[in-house]
């Protein structure tokens, strides 16, 4: 079975290798985000403050960022800060810690991404299964073409179409904004989730469809059919679990893309998420905040992947 092999390949290494890999990559992310500011030509403090800043401002920032210390000692301070959850203070809002600035927006983005994963898993699996089980050729064909079209459409465009059709014309959702508290937030959340799902759900639908086709050819499905098992039992208890299994890996691999998509979708809908924070911080040259966003999203990608691998091993009895 070609399908079986590729699955095992993805999780073929022992768990400790994956953990070591994840930690190494995480450290690499930290190192790169640390070095970025030093890769900029010229004085980092001058670069951060812009041409209008006075010499004394530059000198003050120079000292605050310990730019005169040896690089190794700077790195040590930086890593120890990260380890203690201290990512420094904002430059744009003096006295405000980066963690508090990014933290609240992170919650919004995580809510958006998590809701998208849940919605995409359910809808993608259902649609993929429907495509695989369809007796007629046209339903399957239609679903596959729609999936490719959705995958090829940029998130901002899907977002604009969503706003035009569902918010402006049908008026069943606000065109953007955020209530700031639950449960009112949900009415602002569902359209962005739908838009971001336009990226993940087709991927899941395609994977489930392909795996379901393979599963339907497996001997155990025919054996169960020959025992007289009903079609619904066959599909829900045997085809679905076997076809949905690879989506765990798929979601893990796409966390980075999802966060990238979330940044765009937040901008389209004016959600106060990490994306919005990042855009604002970039505009105001708030380097520590940009750095923190890079670190945090990097960590989510690295450990999201690891989590998916661990989840796969827990769920697939052959790998337990």
């Amino acid at each position, binding site marked *: 079975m070609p399908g079986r092999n590729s699955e095992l390949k993805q999780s073929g290494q022992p768990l400790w290798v994956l953990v070591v890999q994840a930690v190494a990559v995480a450290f690499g992310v930290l190192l790169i985000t640390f070095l970025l500011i030093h890769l900029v030509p010229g004085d980092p403090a001058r670069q951060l403050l812009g041409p209008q800043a006075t010499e004394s401002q530059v000198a003050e920032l120079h000292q605050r960022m310990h730019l005169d210390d040896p690089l190794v000692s700077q790195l040590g301070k930086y890593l120890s800060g990260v380890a203690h959850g201290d990512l420094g203070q904002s430059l744009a809002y003096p006295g405000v810690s980066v963690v508090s600035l990014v933290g609240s927006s992170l919650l919004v983005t995580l809510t958006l991404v998590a809701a998208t994963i849940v919605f995409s898993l359910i809808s993608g699996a259902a649609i993929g299964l429907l495509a695989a089980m369809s007796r007629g050729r046209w339903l399957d064909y239609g679903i596959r073409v729609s999936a490719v079209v959705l995958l090829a459409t940029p998130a901002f465009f899907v977002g604009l179409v969503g706003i035009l059709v569902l918010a402006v014309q049908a008026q069943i959702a606000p065109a953007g904004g955020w209530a700031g508290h639950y449960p009112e937030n949900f009415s602002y959340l569902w359209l962005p989730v739908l838009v971001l799902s336009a990226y993940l759900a087709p991927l899941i639908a395609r994977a489930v469809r392909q795996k379901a086709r393979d599963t339907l050819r497996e*001997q155990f499905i025919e054996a169960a*059919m020959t025992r007289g098992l009903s079609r619904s039992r066959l599909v829900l208890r045997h085809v679905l679990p076997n076809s949905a299994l690879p989506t765990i890996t798929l979601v893990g691999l796409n966390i980075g893309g999802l966060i990238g998509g979330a940044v765009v979708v937040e901008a389209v809908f004016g959600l106060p998420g990490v994306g919005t924070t990042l855009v604002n911080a970039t505009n105001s040259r708030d380097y520590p905040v940009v750095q923190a966003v890079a670190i945090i999203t990097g960590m989510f990608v690295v450990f999201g992947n690891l989590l998916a691998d661990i989840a796969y091993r827990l769920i697939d009895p052959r790998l337990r």
Partner: protein
Amino acid sequence: MTDALLALDNVAVRIRSAEILRDVSLTVRRGAAVGLVGETGSGKSMTCRLLTGTLAVVGGQLSRGTFQYRGEDAGRWSERQWRRYRGRRIALVPQSSQSALDPLMPVGAQVEETLREYRAPNIARRTRELLHAVQLDATAALLDLYPHQLSGGMRQRVMIALALAGDPELIIADEATTALDVTVQKSILELLEQLRQQRGMALLAVSHDLSVIEQLTTDVAIMYSGSIVESGPTGLILADPGHPYTRALIRSRPHMAEHRARLESIPGSPPSPEDRPSGCAFRTRCPSVFDKCSSAVPALTGIDTHAHFASCFLHDVVDASLDEVNRI
């Protein structure tokens, strides 16, 4: 013929234009043990599909002849009608392999699920009874094991338990022991034979392995390129085959007692349904071929008084020469 459970009469099965089964006649009486022998590609699996109503899965359809089950026209049963028979009356023990059980579900749950489908009462107790019947130690630990944690022999015992779940009157064992070690194979065969006798079930053993057929069956049908070429009592056919193909099959069996330097094999390979030779399908590989073999398809005819049938013109020749001898 009143106690015939299933009767195939001159059956042909097509997948699109290819005639996979060309002429299959087979009778299994209540409680009987019948064998179906043939090489890979002879049409054994298609016959199993026909008998379990799963031809449609591969796009096959009954194009000629009749398939009767308990006197009913099973060849025309709808999927709905088949669902009342599958597992409950006709059960299949599939080829022994890792993939005959769902890899993501514990074996106990798979047995329970099947019983639930049959609306059996006391499912937990019935599950233990079934596993006990196939000589598995039905502890909670076994029920919670996944298929990959079982040995090949244990998996096949579970498959037999699943086949027994609906209390069927006919069990079709399709190469049920082929992938197993010889010793495990022997114990599974003994189990099948014992269960058949205890429960009064009929058994159709489908195999390419004559020793399996010899051990399990009293009657046998030999299949070649979609047709039954010989049928009759197992012992008689193994001792005195009436068709050159059967003779060649028997000669190619490995023997413990005789130390032959090499196993004999049948030269060539079975023809695909698309390029069967005219006349007798075996004639291109037959050592006794003569001019008549290419002009007509020999019919299955009685060759002695023991319900022994073969489709070969050699018997006509012998009969004709006997007639001639008698006339003189």
